[in-house]
C-alpha cells in the first residue's frame, strides 16, 4: 500500500481524516486544560498561603 492510496481512504478521506484529526485535537486540548487547571489552582493556593503567612 502506498501513501497516496492510504491518504485517499478509498474516497472517504474528507470524512475519515477530519474525524481522526478532531479527536486528536480534543484529546490533546483536554490534557493541556487539565494541566493548566492544576497549575493555576496550585499557584493560587501558594499565593494565598504566602499572603496568610505575612499577615500573621
Amino acid at each position, binding site marked *: 500500500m502506498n501513501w497516496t492510496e492510504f491518504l485517499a481512504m478509498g474516497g472517504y478521506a474528507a470524512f475519515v481524516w477530519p474525524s481522526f484529526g478532531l479527536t486528536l485535537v480534543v484529546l490533546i486540548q483536554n490534557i493541556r486544560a487539565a494541566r493548566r487547571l*492544576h497549575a493555576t489552582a496550585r499557584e493560587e493556593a501558594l499565593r494565598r498561603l504566602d499572603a496568610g503567612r505575612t499577615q500573621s
Partner: protein
Amino acid sequence: MNWTWFHKLASPPHFYRIAGRLAPWFGWPAFLLIVVGLYGGLVLAPADYQQGDGFRILYVHAPSAWMSMFIYSTLAIAAGIGLVWRIKLAHAVAAASAPVGAWFAFLALATGSLWGKPMWGTWWVWDARLTSELILLFLYMGLIALRASIDERERADRACAVLALVGVVNLPIIHYSVYWWNTLHQGSTITKIGKPSITSDMLWPLLVMMVGFTLYFAAILMTRLRAEVIRRERDASWLREGLAR
C-alpha cells in the same frame, strides 16, 4: 475487612499525592494503546465490505461514545456516593468528570456526523440514538452550568448530584435506542453476550482504543482532581507542605 486504606485514600492530602503519582501510570499506557489502536484501525484492519475505508471512523467514534457514557456513569455513581455518605472527594470526582464527559459526547456526535454524511447521506437526523446522545451532551453542559451558577460549594455539590442522578435515565435510552426504535444508526458491533458481529482483525484495534481512551480519562481525571482538591481545601494547613516542591 480493614477499611483504613480507604479512609486514608479519601483524605485530601493523601489523595492529592497519590493522584499525582498515578496520573503518569494511566497516561503513558493510554498513549501507547491509542498509538497502537490508531495503527491497527487505520492500517492493519481490512476495509469494510459495505462501507469501504469509511468505516474506520468507528475507531474514534465508538470509543468516544463509550467514554461519554462511561464518564457519565462514573459521575453519577460518585454523585450518589457524595449524596449518601457525604464524601467530599466523591463530589470532586463528579465535578472533575463533567467537562471531560462533555468533550467525549461532542466527539461522538461530531465523528458520528462525519460518518453519517457519506453513509446515510445526511449530517444529522432526529432519531433516537442521535437525539439521546445530544441530550447527554446537554446534561453535561447543564451540570457544568449549574455548578458554576451556585457559589456555595456544598449546595452546588448537592444540586449537581441530584441532576446527575436524574440524568441516569438517559443512559439505558442511549444504549437500547437502536433496538427500541427504528433508527438509521447501526446496531452494536460488540455484542456483550455471544459473538461480536465483527472479524477479529477489525475488533482488536477497537478494543485497544476503548481501553486506551478509558485510561486516558483516568489520567485526566487524576490531574483535574488534584486541582479540584486544592480549590476545596484552600485554607487547609496541609496545603503548605502538600504543595511545596
